[in-house]
């Protein structure tokens, strides 16, 4: 079985969020990580590899620096890494990103494609389903469990108040939730091997069956009209009192606000 996993290098918004004094985001002070949902997708692929035997190829699109997440994935156990990077691909929205990744994946053999549900920087959850549409294969989003049955996958697909057990013939694309599993750590041997391996680097010319009109900033149907770091509402009061005084304080405030 051949599995392609799409991963993204993102700024770490968990815990490591840093603000400037004016309340805006200090991006320079933030570290980058492998997007958590993608890491869960990779872990799911590696478990399928452990269980059924599979070749796992990780693909990322980004700046040359994004090679770091491919190395990390390979140190966890992925077999091959593909970096799609080219100036003309920059500034892409989800349409142009999914067009690009589909163009790269067309060069690869796959039974299963796994993406994370969403990235913690954009939070759109759109790229996975859009790739599946470009490749004309079924998609199962929000996977909380993945099993293989012959030439099909059986997936628990999460909704707000239920889940569906869904069966699809491969090839198929699945988007993974970070709740899916606890990703494994890199092993020292894995890290060592990962840095010895070649990473395939593809540019615009290597993408299959894509039109320039659908790539990069120019090929993105959505355009940013305005972007700003959110200035949060300021902190209110903060008091440190003994428990009885704390209770009186809260009760008084709720009275003033006519809650009680």
């Amino acid at each position, binding site marked *: 079985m051949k599995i392609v996993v799409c991963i993204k290098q993102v700024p770490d*918004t*968990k815990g490591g*969020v840093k603000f400037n004094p004016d309340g805006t*985001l200090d991006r320079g002070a933030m570290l980058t990580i492998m997007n958590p949902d993608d890491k869960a997708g990779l872990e799911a692929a590696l478990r399928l590899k452990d269980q059924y035997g599979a070749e796992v190829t990780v693909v990322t699109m980004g700046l040359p620096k994004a090679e770091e997440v491919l190395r990390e994935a390979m140190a966890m156990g992925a077999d091959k890494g593909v970096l799609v990077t080219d100036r003309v691909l920059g500034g892409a929205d*989800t*349409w142009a990103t*999914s067009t690009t990744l589909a163009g790269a994946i067309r060069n690869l053999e796959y039974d299963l494609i796994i993406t994370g549900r969403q990235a*913690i*920087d*954009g*939070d*759109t*959850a*759109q790229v996975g*389903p*859009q790739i*599946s*549409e470009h490749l004309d294969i*079924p*998609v*199962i*989003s929000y996977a909380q469990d993945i099993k293989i049955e012959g030439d099909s996958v059986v997936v628990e697909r999460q*909704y*707000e*108040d*239920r889940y*569906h*057990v*869904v*069966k*699809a*013939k491969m090839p198929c694309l699945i988007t993974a939730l970070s709740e899916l599993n606890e990703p494994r750590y890199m092993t020292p041997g894995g890290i060592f091997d990962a840095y010895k391996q070649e990473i395939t680097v593809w540019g615009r010319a290597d993408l299959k069956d894509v039109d320039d009109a659908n790539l990069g900033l120019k090929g993105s*149907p*959505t*355009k*940013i*009209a305005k*972007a*700003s*770091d*959110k200035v*949060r*509402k300021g*902190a*209110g*009061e*903060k*008091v*440190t009192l*003994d*428990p*009885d005084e*704390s209770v*009186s*304080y*809260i*009760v008084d*405030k709720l009275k003033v*606000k006519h*809650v009680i």
Partner: protein
Amino acid sequence: MNLEEYKGVYVFAQQVDNEISSIAFELLGKAKDLAKDLSTDVTAVLIGSGVKDLADQLAEYGADKVIVVDDPELKDYRTEPYAHALSSVINQYKPEIMLVGATAIGRDLGPRVSARVATGLTADCTVLEIGDFPLQAVPGQEQLHNQLLMTRPAFGGNTIATIACPYNRPQMATVRAGVMQKIAPIKGAKAVVEEFNPGFTPDNKYVEILDIVKSVAETVDIMDAKILVSGGRGVGSPENFKILEDLAEVLGGTVSCSRAVVDSGWKPKDLQVGQTGKTVRPNVYFAIGISGAIQHVAGMEESDIIVAINKDADAPIFDVADYGVVGDLNKIVPKLTEALKAEIAASK
């Protein structure tokens, strides 16, 4: 693509088990505003099996017209037949705006449909308005009017972007649940109902549903609660949520929680507030033993009044709290419950 051909504001009227989801009514409320600004009308697209009878409800909440795609293949949500239905409606009727709820269904259907009809899609919008693109005229670039301007948070709620889709139609957005306002239903309102069936031929993309497992129904949806008593990891144990439940009961509120609590298996996911949970806007939000990670704050910062109780004086929750109390929740919360009980009894 002749953009002029595309007219009208359309809403995907999500239904589950032949019951219209609240998000559909919220979208109709917003669509009515947008349609007014554009001097056009509002169309709901109702997709399912045996759903035609639901059209009147959509009319009561503001739909001028309802397009019904009714087919046995559409009984339970599956990406392909629903994507085929909605994209066929778009190709046939050519809406200028297509709104979809940012639900577990809409966030799957939206991207698949937008890719099929080759247009842009803006995810998880919290503000929609009609305006110009670019916002300010730029020499050498035509300023387009009557564009849908879609505002959304990104970066875990740390940045806000306003996005347009000036050269493709329809302008598509998924919209976060609980943000747009429904109108007060107009009893007896009727819409023009039109049935449309593009034909459904199962292929490899029609996945098979083997089983549907519903989680135990919660009595109150935390998104509808006026008072939320929300607990985090600091509560310490699932048993200790009892003190939060007692407080909630006195105030007629509901208990919710942070992601850490769900991840620890203390509470089910439908009680989770935050980026990967629900966005809530109660009148009062008690954050008890919640540190206030940015992902949590993104889901509750629009609450009218935020009361935080946390023993860590540096917890980021105090940056958004109106009233912050540094202290031991185990000592404060039970006393608070008793005090409120006495106050409420005295005021009766």
